[in-house]
Structure formats: C-alpha cells, structure tokens
C-alpha cells in the first residue's frame, strides 16, 4: 500500500503534470530571464505566462500585481514590513490570535521593537468580533493582517468584509491566503484586499516558491533590494523552474475548483460523519459551516494527539495534530487554546486534510481505523474508566502538582 496522505494542509505532492512543465527549465531552458539573448528570452516568456496563470487564479486585475517570492513566509514578512516602512508614523498593527507563526512571530518581534500589536480574539468557533475590529481601526494603524482560512481548522475569516472596513478607515489590509488559494474561488479585482500571500507547496507546486499579490497603487517598500527583478520589488534571480511550476499548478487548481468544492467536500464530510458516528466524546473544532472543503479537525477527548498520529502512521495514514508534543512546546496549539477548547480535548485534536487525489477507498479505510486507535489509547488513559471518561476527572485523577 502506498499510504494514505491526509495532511495536505501541511504540504501537497507536486502534480506530475507540474513536474513535467518545470523540468525543461533545469536543462535546455536554463537561461536567465533578464538576459537579452535567446537563451534567456524564452525563459522570460515562460515566467510571463506563469504570472498570468497566477493572476487568473487570483482574479487579479493586472499581471504586474503578482510578485514571485521564495515562500509564503517571505510574502507575509514582505507585506507587513513594507506597510510599516511606507507608513512610518503609524505605530499600531492588527491581526488575529489564530494566525500562522509566519505572522504571529513577526508581530511579536515588532512589539519588541516598539509597535503596539492588537490581536483580535475569537469565540469558540474561531470567529472574530467585528465590533472590536471596527473600534481598533484608526489612522494610527499601519496594517491589518488576517488569514483567509485557518490552517488547523480550515475556518474562514470574513476577509472581504474586513478589507472593506480597513479600506474605509484608510488602513492597509493584508491576507495570508496560503491555505485558501486553490481551494476556494478568489476574485481580487473586486475586493479591497491590498496584499495577499500564497505558497506553491500547498497547491501541488514545489516548496520554496510563493507569491505576494500587491494591488496596483498600494505603496510598497521592498524587503530585498538589488537587481530589477520583479520590477525592483523583489530582487534576486528568479526561481524560473518553480515559477513555471506554480503557474501550471494554478491553472490546474482553477480547473479543479469545482471538483474541490463538490467531490473533495463530499469525501471530507463522509470522513467526519463516519468517525463521529463511531467515536464517542469527539467533536469538530472550528466553524464547521464556514470552512475549507478539504479540512476536518476533530478533537478526541482524553487522549493525546502525537500518540494518535504514531498509531495512524503505523496504518500508513498521515494526518497532523495540534497537541503540544508534536510541536515540541509544552502548550497545545495556540489555535485550540484561543478558541477555548478545553485541555482535555485540545491535546487530542487531529487534522485530516484532503486533496483532489484522495479516494473513496482511502476515506473508508480511515473511518475503519480511527475508532480502533482511539479506543486503544483511551484504555491507557488515566482519565478514561471502564466504559467512558471518569465521571469527575479532576477528582479521580488528582496529581500532586499541576
């Protein structure tokens, strides 16, 4: 058996057609797109084509709004730091508590450098309070950054509406759409989003290629200065093979958009319903009615996520977890804590993320295996009695220190 890969929010396999498209750019098409001779010229045209393929997937108005970078993280950093340099007198920044570390670590560093960061809190389903957001918008704010879809739960933030509000208040708006691009339709030309980050390896392109979308007219300061590549907005010789690959992957994602939102969604729903029907004391985290079609995040109470993953792995099933142990820190995922998921469940959250390659047989197999694994681990747990959780876990298990 090849293994069942349900960790597509972590990274995806490069589509064979994408590999095929990129390979010539290592060999016969090795030229530098900036060169005038014919070695470089064709490559320049290929990069242009890729730019248009990305443009189309994003619904961007102009091809020049697409800036190729090295990854999602670089796009995020470039966007935020550019907004700060472009608005030096503005010393406040806004984001949400659920962001990816690519934003959160940057914000916490900026706090050390003297900026005031506002982190929008969320409710139990991971939704922000729009009134709180409106109150925070002011001419002291340099930039707002809100992710389109959360990587752990798949839940959406209302980025279109939040961008409108920011725009009305004269504040720049950035969205980390690394998880959303390729999975849901996006139409940037009809939005007030100023900047958007995406990452190739989440949509069947290679790792190490990303894009920053920059709306025409939005003030910009480059992170990397040097040559005139990307119109001087991101210096450094282009990663041509990966750019071509990303273009192809965007074209394919657009073609598969319908499939993603019907068939992939159906399999995800089947998986979720199948597991929940057989496993007691388990629930879906996040906003189940408003999320990516490929993501299901289930909290299994009274057991720990890494142990679940190790056993799944034994059955050839790949998933991921928000448990503390998988991250190497002692705290469970900041996403689960921010949503107020109790510790008894937060450590056992398990994310299944599908792709257009996921098959019905794979889903059936996972539905069969997961309940066994959960039962096996619960037998070991001091919080689990003969036929269910201890009635009063706090009392039945009272450790000396906490």
């Amino acid at each position, binding site marked *: 058996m090849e293994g069942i890969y349900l960790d597509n929010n972590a990274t995806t396999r490069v589509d064979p057609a994408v590999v095929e498209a990129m390979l010539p750019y290592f060999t016969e098409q090795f030229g530098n797109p900036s060169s005038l001779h014919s070695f470089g010229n064709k490559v320049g045209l290929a990069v242009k084509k890729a730019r248009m393929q990305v443009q189309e997937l994003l619904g961007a108005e102009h091809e020049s709004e697409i800036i190729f970078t090295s990854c999602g993280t670089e796009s995020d950093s470039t966007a935020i730091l550019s907004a700060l340099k472009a608005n030096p007198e503005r010393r406040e920044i806004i984001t949400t508590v659920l962001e990816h570390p690519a934003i959160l670590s940057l914000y916490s560093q900026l706090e050390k450098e003297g900026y005031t960061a506002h982190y929008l809190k969320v409710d139990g389903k991971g939704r922000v309070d729009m009134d709180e957001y409106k109150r925070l918008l002011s001419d002291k704010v340099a930039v707002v950054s809100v992710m389109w879809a959360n990587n752990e739960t798949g839940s959406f933030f209302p980025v279109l509406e939040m961008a409108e509000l920011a725009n009305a208040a004269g504040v720049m708006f950035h969205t980390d759409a690394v998880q959303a691009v390729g999975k849901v339709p996006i139409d940037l030309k009809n939005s007030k989003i100023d900047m958007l980050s995406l990452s190739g390896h989440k949509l069947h392109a290679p790792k190490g290629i990303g894009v920053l979308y920059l709306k025409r007219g939005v003030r910009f300061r480059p992170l990397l200065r040097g040559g005139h590549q990307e119109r001087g907005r991101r210096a450094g010789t282009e990663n041509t093979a990966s750019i071509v690959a990303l273009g192809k992957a965007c074209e394919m994602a657009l073609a598969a958009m319908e499939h993603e939102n019907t068939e992939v969604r159906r399999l995800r729903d089947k998986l979720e319903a199948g597991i929940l029907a057989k496993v007691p004391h388990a629930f879906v985290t996040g906003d189940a009615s408003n999320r990516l079609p490929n993501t299901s995040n289930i909290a299994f109470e*009274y*057991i*720990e*996520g*890494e*142990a679940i*993953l*190790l*056993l799944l*792995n*034994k059955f050839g099933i790949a998933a991921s977890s928000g*448990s*503390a*142990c*998988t991250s*190497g*820190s*002692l*705290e*469970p995922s900041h996403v689960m804590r921010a949503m107020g998921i109790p*510790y*008894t469940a937060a*450590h056992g959250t398990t994310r299944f993320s599908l792709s257009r390659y996921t098959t019905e047989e794979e889903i059936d197999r996972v539905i069969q295996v997961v309940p066994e694994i959960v039962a096996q681990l619960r*037998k*070991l*747990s*001091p*919080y689990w009695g003969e036929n269910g959780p201890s009635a009063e*876990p706090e009392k039945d*298990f*009272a*450790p*000396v*220190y*906490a």
Partner: protein
Amino acid sequence: MWDYSDKVKEHFFQPRNAGPLADANAVGDVGSISCGDALRLMLKVDPETETIEEAHFQTFGCGSAIASSSALTEIVKGMKLDDALKVSNQDIADYLDGLPPEKMHCSVMGREALQAAIANYRGEEWSDDHEEGALICKCFAIDAVLIEDTVRANNLSTMEDVINYTKAGGGCASCHEGIEEILAKVLAERGETFKAVPVKLDKEAPKPGKLTNLERIRRIEAVLESVRPQLQRDHGDIELVDVDGKTVYVSMTGACAGCQMEALTLQGIQTKLMEELGELIKLVPTRAGSLARATSQP
C-alpha cells in the same frame, strides 16, 4: 515526526504493564492534562521486604510519555523501594536508548511518579518544585526557567557565562537570541544593561595527555580555587577530596549542598575542568544522591 529509537517505538506500540492494578498499595499521580502529560503509577509493594512486586501505569500523553511509563514499570519491578528511589530520569531515558531533547521531560515525569508513589506508600507528603519553561537550547535540552534561575543565582552577565554554567548555547549557537533575551531581562532587573561580547566557541583545547599527575591535580585545584569566591558569596564552598583517573571527587558545603543549584554549579565547574585539562572529566560530589541530580539535570 520525532526521531524515536526503536526501543521507544517498541514500548509505545506494545506498552508493558498498562492499565489499572487492582491491589496496588502505592499510587503516584503526576502531571496534568493541561500540560498534555499525566501519569498514574501503581505499585504493589511487599510490606515484609519492601520489594516492588508489580508495577502498572496509566498515561495520557505522547509516544515518549507512554514509552517512558512502560519502561519505568519494567525497570522498577523487583526492586527494593530504597533502590527504586535512586532511579533517575536518565536511567529511564537510557533504558529506551535515549529520548529526543524535547522529550526528556517525559522521563522526568516518570521519575517523579515513582517518588510520588513511594511517598504515598510510606504515608509521606510528596511535593516537587518542578517548573518547566519553554525549551530554549535544543542541543542540550535546557529550558528558559533553568537558564533564568542560573543567571540570577550566579550573577551571570554574558553568553559565555551561560554556556559555562548551563551548557545552553554551547552547541550550534542558534539559541543565542533566546539566551540574550533572558540575560537582558535579568540584567535589567539588577539595573544593568546587557552588552553583547563576542563568544569564542570551539575553543582550542590544551594539548591532552602530556600532564603529569601532579600537574593535573594542581590544575584541578586551581580551577576549584577560582570558583570558590563565587560559592562563598552564596555561603557555600567546595573542596577537592580525591582524583581517580577521570573522576574528580569534591565535597560541597553550605547553602549549595543538595539544592537544585548544586547540580548546575557542578556542571559549570565540570565544564571548566574539562577545558582546563583538555580531557573528559567527571565531577562527583561525595555525598550520595547528589550525583544522580548532577547527571540527571536535562
């Protein structure tokens, strides 16, 4: 995925002695669900001989927590209680052919459960000043609390001090930003500012093997002499007792003896000795018990 040894995987996939033990007469509960780790150790102790006849566990935790619990029950079965008390977390980790640095706390939890269970059997109160912070140095598995406490207790002010006293930062150096933040914070508390001085890593070690016995002892004494003022300031002291090949025996007195800081201090001195002599040195305090601490400090 973590780089677990085969032994860890074996104990995770086929845990020994899992599940409740009906006639247990010694039970130790440690950890908490909020930390993502909780362990109940149940022992059946023969009151006549104080021998552990059976050991079972229930664990809420990750792969290495379950494997550590399983290993612990195997280690202590058949042991006398007094011997079981000497089992260190390093023994548990060694039994499993090692644990990744991020996971050493799983073995610490095992040792604590054992102590708690024995205290429970003997009708004693068991408590632990156990506190863990964010892991700062991955090379040596040293957390923020340990670094901060050491910096504070020893009035450290440079990166080099921290490396000498805790080992943190002495490997790949990628944790230096985190250590500098701790230094800056503690120094600010005492009204000083942290100034970065370049650290010399990979120091040229003195040529080994050329020292006569007398020279070696003189050098050892010189190192001990150099740290005495600092210890005396904290109302402690250190004295050379004996040198046996690579093992240096010392006696520690005063405020330092037995406390958590002792292990740290010993580690720092041991590092100094190794640098000075250019060879591996094991520094051993002559009181039983402290050795385990010195080596078990993760």
